[in-house]
């Protein structure tokens, strides 16, 4: 009998709550792939993991917070961003990441997204865009592109959809990128870059929902979707975000679209109070009670 070969532990395993496995995501779902990229970015960034908090909303992607072995908050539907805003303003020493889905962040939570971007709160927002509400059974989302079948659009959707990078740029985000779950290395690198960016940073990740989007639209399984991502994607770093809107079967423009600097909320607040109040201003770091 041959000896057992000792395999090295997966280096990203330390980031996962292995006692919560198996996860709830379907075979072929892309959310787990994005989590893998996220853990890779954390590993590369040498971040102090005790100082990283992840905040999610509700939905399939909202479950990410629960699987990451970090301080993690599974909040209410659409409200991950304002929760993260409060956490970051009270604890500027923490890295605060919002990890959620397209319905959560851009329908019920859309108002919070644009206001946090306008304020340039120093939080990092990762949106897993699977083009539908998946947890509730595949309903139309504000991102569902073109004429697609969903459970609430049985004759196909006709509403125009959001172009998320354009929305993020217009609202004031300092970093905007889009990848698909095919682009694992590029996505991990982008997440790494985002960590080093001060201000409101946004990454959209296009991800298959084979169970509720691809299947209903006869677009094949998760593997087939990755093949489509590969064929349809075109990298255009610095592309004008007005020209990167998604269609049902058309080109998927990926890359880093926006990387700019402007002072974040806390920096503006401190500078302003110092200017207007002088010595009376009591500058605070972390707000921690007795």
């Amino acid at each position: 009998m041959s000896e057992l070969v000792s395999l090295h532990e997966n280096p990203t395993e330390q980031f996962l709550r292995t006692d919560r496995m198996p996860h709830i995501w379907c075979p072929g779902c892309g959310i787990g792939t994005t989590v893998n990229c996220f853990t890779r970015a954390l590993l590369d960034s040498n971040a102090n993991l005790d100082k990283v908090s992840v905040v999610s909303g509700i939905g399939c992607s909202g479950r990410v917070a629960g699987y990451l072995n970090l301080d993690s908050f599974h909040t209410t539907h659409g409200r991950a961003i304002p929760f993260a805003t409060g956490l970051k303003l009270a604890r500027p020493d923490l890295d605060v990441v919002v990890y959620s889905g397209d319905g959560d962040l851009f329908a019920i939570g859309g108002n919070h997204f644009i206001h946090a971007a306008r304020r340039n709160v120093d939080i990092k927002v990762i949106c897993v865009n699977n083009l539908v509400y998946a947890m509730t059974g595949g309903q139309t989302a504000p991102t569902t592109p073109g004429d697609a079948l969903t459970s609430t659009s049985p004759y196909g959707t006709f509403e125009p959809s959001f172009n998320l990078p354009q929305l993020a740029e217009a609202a004031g985000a300092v970093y905007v990128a889009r990848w698909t779950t095919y682009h694992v290395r590029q996505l991990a690198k982008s997440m790494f870059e985002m960590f080093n960016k001060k201000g409101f940073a946004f990454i959209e990740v296009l991800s298959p929902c084979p169970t509720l989007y691809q299947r209903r639209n006869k677009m094949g399984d998760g593997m087939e979707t990755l093949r489509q991502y590969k064929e349809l994607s075109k990298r255009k770093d610095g592309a004008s975000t007005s020209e990167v809107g998604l269609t049902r079967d058309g080109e998927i423009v990926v890359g880093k679209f926006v990387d700019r600097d402007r002072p974040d909320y806390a920096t503006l607040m401190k500078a302003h109070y110092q200017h207007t109040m002088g010595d009376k201003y009591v500058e605070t770091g972390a707000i921690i009670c007795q």
Partner: protein
Amino acid sequence: MTVHADPKGVLTGTHFIDGDHACCEGALAAGARFASGYPITPSTEVVERFAARIPSVGGVFIQMEDELAASIALQGAVWGGAKAFTVTSGPGFSLMMEHIGYALMTETPCVFVDVQRGGPSTGLPTMPAQGDMMQCRWGSHGDYEVIALAPNSPQECFDLTIRAFNLAEKYRLPVMFMMDECVGHMTEKVVIPPADQIEITPRRLTKQAPDEFLGYKADEDLVPDIAKAGDGYRFHVTGLTHNEKGYPSMTVKTQDKLIHRLQDKILQNADDISINEEVDLDAADVVVVAYGITSRVAMKAIQMVRDSGQKLGNRKLRIGMFRLITPWPFPDKKIRALAGRIRGFVVPELNLGQMSREVERASGGLAKTIAVTHAGGTVHSPEEIAEAILEAAR
């Protein structure tokens, strides 16, 4: 366990300020260093004062984009380690209901201030009512118990705001601070004592090591200790039904255990939580149960009846007052005991009958309950209440 207030937030002295401003000073004295708000009459002055004061105390005020954001941003700050609150009125309070539920389920210590105005909907933005008393108890979905306090003067707006924060920390829940427009906008003397005379309940931070810590394993008082972000505990917080570790566990058994504990931690500690003002209750024939601004009108009514020399048989009619300082948890036992020895309760309130139903329920048919209702917009006339007192004595 208590500690003294941090003097940085305590504006010791004698002031002539309104209830909204006094509430803000109470929050600062209690240690609140974070507030998230959204403008709404007649509550805005609380956060306006906080916005003016906090840069020189040390902390953050942020005006959010709506009440949903305001009511969850403060919870993010709390999990970071801050004491935090939000302030609103009728329509904003309606929008905050989901996040009151989130704070209850996740046991997030915080304070929600509601300066009540006429409703429903936009109603009477600048005029008083007490129509949110049941909403603060039942407004979020599901079963739970809350703590609610109702001040009747600017001084109490200060004192009881501190109590609200202390109870929030001790029992880990959102405490409802139920003011009304009159109390909020009424200006009176407010005495703020020195910091070393103000007792503060500190956060019950866990002393356990991260690998031993269970974020929702309760102590003997049915309340779990808490961790804050950034300390290496790597804890999880969710609004889903969760086990002692804080992980989602959607089973009948977990739900039963968790929801009963959330209820019992308030009900079993009700004697510690509940303070109420009891005036001339011994040998009373009629007891007026009132709260907030209405309790002050009721005192006038009681005095009027006394002055008129009303008799019961051949002796003077005896009238007492039970002032609900803690409407929730409702003082069932005390009302029941009173019901067994008096002729009737009179319950004036600026709504069409909310706490009066509780009085009627708790009295279990042993005494009659006369509700003196009012749709809001102004206070009762003392005569209306006096008339009800006489009716109750008959």
